[in-house]
Structures are given as structure tokens and as C-alpha cells.
């Protein structure tokens, strides 16, 4: 348990009366890539937000490298992409990255910012204001922001949704590099194909419970809907 990158033990989450998550327990080892799949409203976003430290479970505990997600040390090791891109429209691409590089106290904020602008193909528009960016460009900047500080654990909430081709390619490259470097990824998704290509493990959430958790097999790759048919709601 203590050498898992991410672990959950008996996590429940209530919104008013409704249990959004019920008795979630699982472990993700370092270097794994977990694809979290499930219908809308199943609880994927809720779980990711608890792992990222935005909210606390009603019951049970979640840990990142054995620590509470809110600890300063854990925060430094987590990279999060949610539904919003979490960059400022009124600032330029490089201003945004510089800001986050400084907040994460990176030793060389400027070069880290520039490096990630290059890796996401945005260095030609580095001085452009984000509000003028296309959707795909905004998503690529969100990727740059999340990976900028070299996090060991990446929590991505539907990162492939509505990306253009270029953005998809960038994200896949960045994720492959991260996994090759031993980082851990948990990614919720509807886009089964792109996610399953990268995934080492798959978990299916169904109405707040984990209905399936195991290694990703070739069977899943060739017929992605198979998991839903076998373990999900009909």
C-alpha cells in the first residue's frame, strides 16, 4: 500500500443525500496508466477531484505517494487537467506558463515555460493572448500548464474530448514521454480508442462503484465497447 503512487481506501463522497462515490478502493502503481471509463454521471470527475485534493471524501481516504493530496509536497507532484483549461484568457501563453512556473517554484521559470511551449507547438504564438486562441490551442496550453512542473502523478479528466488532431497528437506524445519516464497517469475518458492505446490498466465506474479494475487487454483494444457490455449497465 505504501509504495503505490495513488491509493484509495473505502472512499465515499456525498452530495447532499446522494452518494456520488460508494466504497471506492483501488491502487495504482508508479508508472501505470489507468484509463477510468464510465457513463456520464458515474463518478469519474468526482473521484479525480478527490485525488487531486479539491475535495475531501465523506468517508475513507485517498493518498498520493502515501500522503494526503493537500500536503504541499503532494501538490507539487500532482498535475491536473479538469474540464476547464485553467489558464487566464487575459494573459499570453508565456505569461500564463511563467506564472505557474513561479507558483510551483521551478528553479528556472523562463526556460521551463519556453520548453513546454515548444513541446506543445505553441512557441510561435507565445505572446498571443489566450482569449484569441482556437479551442485546440487552448487545450494544448492546458497540457503545458499541467506538465510544466514535472509532476509524478497526472490526473486528467476527459483530456481528449473535443481536441483537434494536432492537440490529440501532442497529448499522446507528451503522455508517452511521461509514462516512459516512469510517471503515473490516471485518465478518465469517453474516447476509448486514444485512451486505451496508452493505458496499462482499465477501471470501469458504474453508478459510483468500481465495477471492473484490471490490466488492459488486447481484447479491449480491438472492441472497446466490450467492457461496457460485460460489466456496465446494459
Amino acid at each position, binding site marked *: 500500500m505504501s509504495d503505490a503512487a495513488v491509493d484509495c481506501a473505502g472512499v465515499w463522497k456525498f452530495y447532499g443525500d446522494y452518494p456520488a462515490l*460508494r466504497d471506492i478502493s483501488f491502487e495504482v502503481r508508479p508508472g501505470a496508466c489507468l484509463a477510468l471509463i464510465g457513463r456520464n454521471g458515474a463518478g469519474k470527475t468526482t473521484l479525480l477531484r478527490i485525488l487531486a485534493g479539491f475535495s475531501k471524501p465523506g468517508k475513507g481516504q485517498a493518498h498520493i505517494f502515501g500522503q494526503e493530496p493537500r500536503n504541499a509536497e503532494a501538490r507539487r507532484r500532482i498535475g491536473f487537467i479538469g474540464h476547464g483549461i485553467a489558464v487566464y484568457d487575459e494573459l499570453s501563453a508565456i505569461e500564463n506558463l511563467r506564472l505557474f512556473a513561479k507558483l510551483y517554484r521551478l528553479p528556472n521559470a523562463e526556460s521551463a515555460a519556453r520548453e513546454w511551449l515548444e513541446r506543445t507547438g505553441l512557441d510561435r504564438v507565445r505572446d498571443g493572448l489566450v482569449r484569441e486562441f482556437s479551442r485546440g490551442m487552448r487545450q494544448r496550453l492546458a497540457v503545458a500548464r499541467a506538465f510544466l512542473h514535472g509532476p509524478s502523478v497526472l490526473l486528467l479528466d476527459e483530456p481528449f474530448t473535443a481536441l483537434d488532431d494536432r492537440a490529440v497528437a501532442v497529448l499522446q506524445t507528451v503522455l508517452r514521454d511521461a509514462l516512459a519516464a516512469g510517471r503515473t497517469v490516471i485518465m478518465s475518458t469517453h474516447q476509448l480508442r486514444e485512451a486505451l492505446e496508452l493505458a496499462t490498466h482499465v477501471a470501469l465506474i458504474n453508478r459510483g462503484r468500481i465495477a471492473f479494475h484490471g490490466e488492459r487487454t488486447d481484447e479491449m483494444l480491438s472492441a472497446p465497447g466490450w467492457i461496457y457490455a460485460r460489466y456496465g449497465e446494459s
Partner: protein
Amino acid sequence: MRQKVIVVMLALVAILLARNLYTISMLPDEMRQGQIFRIIYFHVPAAAAAMTGSAVALVASVLFLVTKKFQYDALAVAVTEVGLAFLAVNLVTGSIWAHVIWGVWWAWDPRLTSALICWILYAGYMILRQALEEPTQRATFAAVYSIFAFTDVPIVYFSIRWWRTIHPQPVFFSKEGAFPPDWSRALAVNMVAMFLLYAVLTMIRLRQEQTQREIDYLRRTVHAI
């Protein structure tokens, strides 16, 4: 068991108040103010109880933030709501007194003005609670606001006092001449009665909060099946 305690306390309050009303009505009229002076027996205890209540609310709020136990949030709400009612009694009795004695409904007396501001502060607490739906967020934010509000109470009191020394106005209930002993005793008895009433109302409101939480819990359990 709790039910019996509440009933017993209510009965005690009723007896004390009834007896005191009789005693108060038997007292001779105050020299300058006449009948209306008797209002002090309710006006002052109401304020004293409300201020004690606000101190309890502060402690409950801090305890909630530290322990995250919802019983402290329930206590904070109950005590503040009852305190609002008691402060209202204080304000209304003060206003009536002012109208009878000075012919004005509001005379900017330092203590009454401070009480009015405290009332507004705690009304703000209730409005904030109403605007927040998620229970944990509601309890947390209300507790933070409660700490700010309570810190303000002494500052408000002193600042209004200083403000009024610039434009001195007649002060209510100036203590020229000591109270005769039987008057003090009547006031003390009413103090006890009002504090008891405050405690009883708080307990009733607390019971209501706890019942609501039980209902919420049962609903959650049913949904989970």
C-alpha cells in the same frame, strides 16, 4: 430524556416569569419614568442573553472548524437564531421605551445602536447560510463569517461609544442612584428566567437540526441501496 429536561425547564421559566411579573407589577413606579421603567426587566436580560449566545456561537464555530463535527455547526446555528430573536426583543423594548420617554422611536443611544449592528451582523449569518446549499461548505463558510462577526462585536461597541461622545445624547437607564434591593432582586430573577428561556429555545432548535441530519442520513442510506 431530553424531552423531559426541556419540559421541566420550560415549566421553570414559566413559573419564574409569572411570579416575577407579579413582583414587578407590585413595585412602586420609578420617580421620573413611571410605568415604562419596568421594561428594563426584559430589555437588559434580553441583551445579556444574546451577547452570551454570541460568545457560544463563536466557540461552536471554532470547534466546528477544528473538529469538522456537525454537532458544533448545529449548535452555532441554533444559538445564533435564538440570539437574533432575543436581540430583536432588546431593540423593540428599547424603541418603545424611547418613544414613551423621549417621543422618538430611535435615539441613537450607544448600546441600542450597537445592538442593532449586532443584529444585522447575525442576520447576515442567516442569509449566508440560506445562500449556501452544500452542507459542508455551508457549515465552513458560516463558521468563518461567525468568527469575523464576533470579532466585530467589541469593536462596534467601543466605536459607537466614541462616536456618540462627539454628539452626546441622553443615555438610557443612567444609573443615577442605586437600585433599591428589591428591584435588583427582581432584575436578577428575570435574568435567570431569560437565560433559561434562551437555553430551552436553543435546545429545541438543536433537536430540530439533529432530526434534520438524521433524516438526511436515512435518505442517503436508502439511495445507496
